[in-house]
């Protein structure tokens, strides 16, 4: 009897919690006594169990459509109402709803990072979700844009707490961002070329400034242009061509360009300032434009010192300040301010300013600026798509090389500045500092319109002030070009 009991005991497995002290070991599956509690049984079919769950998720998604009330009715059993109101999901509608969803998620993440009830953990989780939904290389404009914004927010999340976000700004837009460190020279040049071809941003800035300069120096024999950020110098190539081909006027003046240069590790991918100088010099020679090139180094903290400029009596002084063209780098406000102050100190006859047009940002807090930034870049993406609708890869290159890093940096700046007062434009700064606006000529305005006409009729130019033209895409204003003269300069009186 005992033996039988022992045998049976070893076959029982009740998680070993027998009240006797025998330790039961794991068992055989002998069916002899019909008491084999350890047979394997078929696994439960999950698909069968998932029915109500799926309906429920779809319903939530329906809720975020305009037809949210329909979703409520539907669920409470009002079948007729549901049929009438059920949203039609054509492809465009589906894309829109995904786009809307991405925007909601981005907003939620931004809110979690900086809102009244901050939660880094929640932000992290939302960003994980976003990354599942988007990629910087594929998908619609909104999806690619959302991917870059997601990366930007991720950077803030990782840096928040350390001082890392300052590094994100850097002097080079690729400074902190992992995959931008290995931009090849050829990629950058190609991207720039494409940017020029696909969109009027660069030309708009250059041509508006150049036209204003031409008009301001018609009778001068010496012109000195101080350029805050010469980059590849292409603005001056076209100015020189215009100078040389002036009809009915004095011969081309001597043109002197002083390029502001930065010591240290500015990004080098477009080549050094010296190279630009050499190129311009060669070009000037080739078209017969009297030309000389100089550099003016900024301090280590990028402050501009007017005393570092070499000035010549009788020259018409122009300060050229291109700030936010798509392929440009971020420049610290203190540096820009020092440059513009320099213009004032030296009584520059003309100041040409091109900068990003900032939208209304409500109370100026992080969320407002974040949304504005999203709106801004979404317009830029759309405009590029209009320029090259079929060339997804080309656009992706421009986005990757230029726009992605800009977005990354823009978010870092907004984040660092949150809580500060509403940001001002440099135009406002100039006005407050006493600079006087100069009218944009009719010719200049017409030129801008002609330029845009070469691209896509989604672009438009507005004269928002008598000294200011603004380039926009559809309803979104993007880039502002304005002209000014120093407070004490009496040339235009």
């Amino acid at each position, binding site marked *: *009897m005992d033996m*039988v*009991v022992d045998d*049976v*005991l070893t076959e*029982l*497995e*009740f*998680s*070993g*919690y*027998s*009240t*006797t*002290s025998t330790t039961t070991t794991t068992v055989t599956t002998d069916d002899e*006594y*019909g*008491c084999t*509690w*350890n*047979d*394997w*049984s*078929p*696994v*439960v*079919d*999950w698909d*069968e*169990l998932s*029915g*109500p*769950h799926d309906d*429920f*998720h779809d*319903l*939530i*998604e329906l*809720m*975020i459509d305009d037809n*949210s009330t329909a979703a*409520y009715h539907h*669920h*409470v*059993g009002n079948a007729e109402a549901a049929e009438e109101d059920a949203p039609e999901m054509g492809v465009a509608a589906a894309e829109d709803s995904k786009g809307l*969803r991405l925007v*909601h*998620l981005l907003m*939620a993440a931004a809110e979690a990072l900086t809102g009244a*009830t*901050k*939660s*880094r*953990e*929640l932000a992290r*989780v*939302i960003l994980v*979700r976003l990354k599942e939904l988007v990629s910087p290389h594929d998908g619609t404009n909104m999806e690619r844009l959302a991917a870059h914004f997601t990366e930007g927010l991720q950077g803030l999340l990782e840096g928040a707490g350390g001082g890392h976000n300052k590094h994100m700004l850097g002097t080079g837009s690729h400074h902190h961002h992992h995959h931008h460190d290995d931009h090849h020279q050829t990629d950058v040049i190609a991207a720039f070329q494409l940017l020029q071809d696909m969109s009027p941003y660069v030309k708009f800035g250059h041509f508006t400034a150049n036209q204003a300069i031409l008009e301001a120096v018609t009778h001068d024999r010496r012109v000195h242009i101080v350029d805050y950020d010469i980059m590849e110098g292409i603005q001056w190539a076209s100015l020189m061509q215009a100078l040389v081909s002036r009809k009915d006027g004095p011969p081309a003046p001597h043109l002197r360009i002083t390029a502001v240069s930065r010591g240290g590790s500015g990004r080098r991918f477009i080549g050094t300032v010296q190279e630009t100088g050499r190129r311009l010099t060669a070009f000037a020679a080739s078209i017969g434009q009297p030309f000389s090139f100089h550099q003016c180094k900024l301090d280590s903290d990028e402050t501009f010192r007017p005393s570092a400029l070499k000035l010549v009596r009788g020259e018409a002084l122009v300060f050229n300040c291109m700030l936010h063209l798509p392929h440009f780098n971020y420049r610290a406000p203190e540096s820009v301010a020092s440059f513009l102050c320099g213009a004032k100190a030296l009584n520059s006859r003309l100041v040409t300013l091109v900068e990003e047009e900032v939208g209304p940002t409500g109370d100026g807090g992080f969320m407002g600026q974040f949304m504005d930034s999203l709106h801004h870049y979404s317009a830029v993406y759309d405009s590029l798509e209009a320029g090259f609708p079929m060339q997804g890869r080309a656009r992706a290159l421009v986005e990757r090389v230029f726009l992605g890093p800009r977005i990354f940096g823009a978010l870092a700046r907004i984040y660092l500045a949150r809580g500060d007062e509403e940001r001002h434009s440099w135009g406002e700064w100039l006005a407050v500092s006493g600079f006087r606006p100069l009218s944009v000529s009719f010719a200049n305005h017409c030129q801008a319109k002609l330029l845009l006409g070469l691209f896509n009729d989604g672009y438009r130019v507005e004269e928002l002030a008598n000294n200011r033209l603004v380039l926009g895409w559809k309803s979104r204003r993007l880039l502002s070009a304005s002209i000014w003269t120093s407070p004490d300069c009496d040339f235009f009186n």
Partner: protein
Amino acid sequence: MERTLFSQSETHFLHPNLHVNGHDPNMQSTNNQPQSSHTSTSRSSDSGEPTGDGKWASRILRECARAISNEDSGQIHNLLWMLNELASPYGDCDQKLASYFLQALFCKATESGQRCYKTLISVAEKSHSFDSARKLILKFQEVSPWTTFGHVASNGAILEALEGETKLHIIDISNTLCTQWPTFLEALATRNDETPRLKLTVVVTASIVRSVMKEIAQRMEKFARLMGVPFEFNVISGLNHLGELTKEGLGVQEDEAIAVNCIGALRRVEVEEREAVIRMLQSLHPRVVTIVEEEADFSSSRNDFVKCFEECLRFYTLYFEMLEDSFPPTSNERLMLERECSRSIVRVLACDDEQNGNVGDCERRERGIQWIERLKEAFSPISFSDDVVDDVKALLKRYKAGWALVLPKEDDPGTYLTWKEEPVVWASAWKP
């Protein structure tokens, strides 16, 4: 017994911002009742505290519960959407909790709890089989003492109370698929020189379980034959509520020594009827009554949605974390247990008690101290003997670390199973 939980005053010293859970008058009288989550800093159940880096799911869930209570439809909409984006029944604990509680919140917001619950039940019933149920229970028992704790304590108390009797009649009100009884039968067969007769009457309430009882009956009878225990097995099902049980209905005979074993049974009774059920149990004149319940209070706050929600969240967060800790990472059984929770959660949070006469079990748990108040009306407590306590301790040693046994002071009966120092299951024994 040494205490593993802080007393109330120590709690306040360590966490001065905490407010003690609930306003149950019972709790204030005794300092040494095991407090709930406030002693453990990892539990984030306090609604008022700003949690900079706290668990994201519980924050959003609680905000949503508040929004529903305030009828702030914009916020509700927003938060449900966010939860929907981030939740997943297959993700980490946060995502799972988000997913299941989202379902309940959605049902509450759209007043569709009853329909949802019915659907969940019917889906579960369709896929429920003896094999799957058995596998589930056994696997759970293998990795966690959550259920076996109560079995061991109850069996020990019953064996001791019925020592020397020759005709035993155990009335088992539970849904444990009789996993408690093989060990009991074995003990009956080996402890006594003369093996007593055992009549086992199982009262089944969950509809899901009824379908498999036939097979269980066969196996139990076979096993009893094997053990050499004279055995009779009956099943009672289809009751509308437990109060309908009678001596005659249960087949109780005068010469039988009765033991009533309630495992997770009392919580399935509608709150207003609990008193009547306890009196019914009293009318059976049992020698011993063993009660095992999960330690949570969904009953005293049932008219305060936010409070009830928070307690629900606290309890199920604990439960889910325990499941995660106990089971291997990819486990179907764990998923099934979580799915079961989803039904309970919907039932407690989104189903109106008044409207739900026949929508299955109530699920409103109460804490040990609350049950004690009820049971004291009809019974007096029995302490678990040292032998039983030793058996339970031996049981706990077989599992992963984290489990402990807590015995309260002498005047309070019952024993608590704790996990990571949180009381989770309460077991007690009573006599007339």
